[in-house]
């Protein structure tokens, strides 16, 4: 967009500045709308699987339900517990919400629609997603209340555990793609299998990695069946127990933005991102972002599906799965994938 603003008579610095601001708004505002709608979709899918109707009162088919909820929390009073550490208590939801939006900067929506096309894109995503834990820990500690504190302990242990195996899974993808650049990873998947099917997931060596990534993603975003941080039968509502009004809404939105990010990463890293499923010229007539959003929506459906059908894990089972199953398997696959790539001369 920089050349466009330069053509309006701005200097390069200003054109770059304005176009970056516009790019951020172009991603963040539709993302917030998408989060509002995806909460509605989540509730509808969940209701349908439980043979209920779900939200159907506000607006046609209940489409405006999320906006009504948003308005409601916006008008509520923010209550800060008297024993809370005020500064941290109020910063924590801001951290969660900001971090949830930051990683979207490097997600490619189309071949040229990417805010920051940096050559360490995947590392950036990994770095930002490892920050998500701070919003939770700070909330748990600053609330000065036992249930949020337990929840924060659980959340931090859980997120650190699964980040380790996610790191190894990403290394397998990077080895095959040969780059950390997100657009480069998408392009490396073009015609991956038999020169016609796009996506690393159709590779027999990377398919198990995708399964691990999907499950680790659920653990990382604290979605069911790994939602031990907000296990309402044990911890009231988890780390956000003491929050009310917009601070609570910030957690809610941040959580769903993170879930959407995980879906987008699944689509980008394993399912060919904005590429159509088959490498056929006709399919390229459909704009890339349509394919991308379709894939993201499909993975969100999978997330909802799992939430509606799978019972919650016990905490020791969760830790065992992370450290004793996923970590060795993903480590083994790093060895296998790199060995295979060396043997077939992929790096030559």
């Amino acid at each position, binding site marked *: 967009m920089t050349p466009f603003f330069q053509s309006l008579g701005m200097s390069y*610095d200003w054109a770059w*500045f304005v176009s970056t601001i516009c790019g951020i708004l172009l991603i963040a505002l539709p993302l917030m709308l998408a989060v509002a709608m995806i909460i509605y979709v989540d509730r509808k899918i969940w209701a349908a699987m439980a043979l209920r109707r779900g939200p159907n009162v506000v607006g046609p088919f209940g489409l405006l339900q999320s906006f009504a909820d948003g308005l409601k929390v916006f008008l509520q009073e923010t209550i800060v517990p008297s024993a809370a*550490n005020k500064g*941290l208590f109020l910063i924590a939801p801001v951290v969660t919400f900001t971090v949830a939006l930051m990683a979207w900067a490097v997600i490619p929506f189309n071949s040229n629609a990417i805010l920051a096309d*940096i*050559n*360490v894109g995947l*590392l*950036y995503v*990994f*770095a*930002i997603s*490892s*920050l998500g*834990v*701070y919003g939770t*820990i*700070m909330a748990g*500690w600053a609330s000065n209340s036992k249930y949020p*504190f337990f929840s924060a*302990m659980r959340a*931090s*242990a859980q997120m*650190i555990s699964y*980040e380790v195996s996610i790191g190894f899974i990403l290394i397998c993808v990077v080895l095959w793609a040969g780059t*950390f650049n997100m657009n480069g990873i998408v392009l490396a998947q073009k015609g991956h299998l038999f020169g016609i099917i796009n996506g690393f997931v159709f590779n027999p060596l990377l398919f198990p990695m995708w399964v691990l990534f999907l499950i680790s993603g659920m653990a990382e975003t604290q979605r069911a069946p790994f939602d031990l941080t907000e296990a309402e039968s044990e911890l009231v509502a988890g780390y956000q127990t003491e929050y009310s009004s917009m601070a609570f809404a910030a957690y809610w939105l941040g959580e769903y933005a993170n879930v959407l990010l995980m879906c987008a990463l699944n689509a980008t890293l394993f399912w060919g991102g904005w590429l159509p499923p088959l490498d056929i010229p006709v399919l390229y007539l459909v704009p890339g972002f349509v394919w991308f959003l379709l894939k993201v929506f499909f993975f969100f459906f999978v997330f909802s599906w799992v939430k509606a059908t799978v019972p919650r894990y016990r905490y*020791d*089972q969760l830790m*065992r799965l992370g450290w004793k199953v996923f970590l060795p398997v993903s480590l083994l696959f790093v060895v296998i994938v790199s060995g295979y790539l060396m043997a077939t001369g992929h790096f030559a």
Partner: protein
Amino acid sequence: MIHVIAFYLFAVMTVGSGAITILARNPVHSVLWLILAFFNAAGLMVLTGAEFIAMLLVIVYVGAVAVLFLFVVMMLDIDFAELRAGFVRYLPFGALVALVLLAEIVLGIGAYRAGSLDLGTPDGTAAAGTGLSNIEAVGALLYSRYLFLFEAAGVILLVAMVGAIVLTLRQRSGTRVQNIRKQNMRRPDEATVNVKPESGKGVQL
């Protein structure tokens, strides 16, 4: 222009949050300020064009090390009065450490001004680039020239990890350990019984 603003922003924030890290009364606040310092250091790395190091700084220090710090510090019950009690006793030792650090900084800056260091040039221009991206350059150097040192570092870390496990692992007798395989093998019909008790009578299990 924007580089200068960014540099001063990151530099001031790094030094400032570093200072508050040691001045803050509450250890949890200290760790959080430390995290902010790491963050801004990563920003400075990006400005010098070392984006790989910047990302590693965030992933390793902010994402893993600082979380563990926070984890430990949050669970400690720290008595501030007791902490401050030893202040005067340790003051001479602390002053000595501060003096040594100051001397090191002065010597370091002096040596750097004299141009005897190989890291860059005293007028601030960086060493000539190689045309490779960050990751390629680091990888090419690490896996060729410094391969032995790199692997040795890995082995040392492995030994440290094994050592930590050996130190903390203790076999206790009489503890009940879950057998996950046995739990997974269990089927509903062997775990539950269906009884139909007569009214007024209990069930013998």
